């Protein structure tokens, strides 16, 4: 556990310009994505991103319930971001808090930008995001895995949704903050895009950045998102290849 203190007490970037976990300013933490990890769900994905471990299940499109939530012209996306009680240092009280409600809302809205919701009137597409272990950047990890799970569920989309946070630590703009950097840094900017069109679909920011720093951060996040999008596609391809070779096996028997 880190001793509590003010920003000035803790040095987040050393003399060589490296961060406390040894990364360069524009370096991502390791990311691994797996598709189709749950049996019952219509689609699912699992992502490990640094110390984050997030599991996502998609159900639907299915009849929206309660009925008054139905929209006659399109599907509603019902995202639920939930942190496990044991996912953080101090046990989190189970159930949705105000932070989780807000995060669920912005994740749902971001996915809505990509899904062809008008193809499924009166239905809901339910996206359940479980944070099993948290290490800063959980909403973006969850969203990135959620869009993969939507593809796994066969839901038509104009592209994947993918994101990456950037921020400011020790006065310097850096990519993909970890827990300590998030706690003791000066700004955090979670952002997600649709790679094909480069549209921004999720954007939040807190802290303090000049306009120039903000521009630098947005650019860093964007570049990283394009790279992570390739990881999403590789993960989807890996599942497809696996099921193909299974079929091959059956045929040869």
């Amino acid at each position, binding site marked *: 556990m880190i001793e*509590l203190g003010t920003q000035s007490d803790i040095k987040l970037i050393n003399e060589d310009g490296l961060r406390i976990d040894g990364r360069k300013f524009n370096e991502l933490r390791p990311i691994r994505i797996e598709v189709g990890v749950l049996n019952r769900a219509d689609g699912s994905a699992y992502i490990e991103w640094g110390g984050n471990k997030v599991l996502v299940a998609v159900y639907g499109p299915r009849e929206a319930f309660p009925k*008054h939530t139905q929209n*006659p*012209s399109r599907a509603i*996306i019902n995202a639920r971001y939930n942190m496990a009680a044991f996912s953080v240092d101090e046990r989190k009280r189970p159930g949705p808090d*105000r*932070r989780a*409600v*807000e995060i*669920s*809302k*912005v994740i*749902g*809205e971001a996915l*809505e*930008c990509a899904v062809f919701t008008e193809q499924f009137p009166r239905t809901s597409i339910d996206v359940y995001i479980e944070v099993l272990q948290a290490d800063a950047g959980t909403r973006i990890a969850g969203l990135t895995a959620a869009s993969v799970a939507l593809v796994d569920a066969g839901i038509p989309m104009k592209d994947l949704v993918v994101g990456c946070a950037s921020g400011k630590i020790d006065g310097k703009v850096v990519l993909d903050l970890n827990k300590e950097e998030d706690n003791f840094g000066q700004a955090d*900017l979670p952002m997600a895009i*649709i790679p094909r*069109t*480069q*549209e*921004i*679909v*999720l*954007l*939040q*920011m*807190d*802290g*303090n*950045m*000049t*306009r120039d720093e*903000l*521009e630098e951060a*947005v650019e860093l996040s*964007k570049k990283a998102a394009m790279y992570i999008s390739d990881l999403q596609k590789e993960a989807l391809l890996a599942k497809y290849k696996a099921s193909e070779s299974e079929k091959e096996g059956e045929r040869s028997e």
Partner: protein
Amino acid sequence: MKRKVSAVSKSADEIVYGLKREYLEKICAEGSRIDGRKFDEIRTAVVNTNFVPRAEGSAEVRLGDTRVLVGIKIEQGEPFPDTPNSGILTTNAELLPMASPTFESGPPGEDAIELARVVDRGIRESKMIDLDKLVIKEGEKVWVVFIDMHILDYDGNLIDACSLGAVAALLEAKVPASKIGAEDFQLPINHIPINVTFAKIGNTLLADPNLEEEEVASARLSVATNENGDVVAMQKGLGGSITKEELFSAVDTSIKVGKDIRKRVLGK
């Protein structure tokens, strides 16, 4: 209670909605807004402070026809274990059913929660209040600042109306230290954050959207800046997207409009 809507009348609503959206997109593309404002022009903002003298600070804000009332209460409480040397800030929003036929009574829904959290973020992240000066006894007792925002009349852009109300109320708030035998003192203020919200209609960003604009907007973006022109908080909302160019044009407008509000409305 939600009004029951039959399938038929709902689709009629859908048609009207579609026509409204088409019309607003058309006039925006032609360079105008439904109430004649410029794209970066906010509605008339009127701030009336000390509306509720019993509160430690208060402000009634009218932003066009949107009307909100913000009250500040400051009470003694225990600090959070991870910040023993710091006062506490807590923000809450009530979408009162009196303010709109679409608001229902009951516990805060996701819209009210998002509203409160976005307003809170602007104030907290700008370090507007010097929370370190609100310690009564280290690790044991601190002042807790409650910001409660009541929506009285809803004509769009609650985020900016509430942010402005909260800032105005905090600027005049007094810490009731006489209750513990000391002298009342002005709430210590470091910065003045101003939030400016935009609605995207078609390919246009409109500052301070009214209800009609808000209803047909594809995306919403709020940008809070401080008096130095730094960005301190942002929030994108709704199921549509924005481009990078739109983001930075919003940042520029927010800095400009923020300066204007600080000077013209708050006299700072």
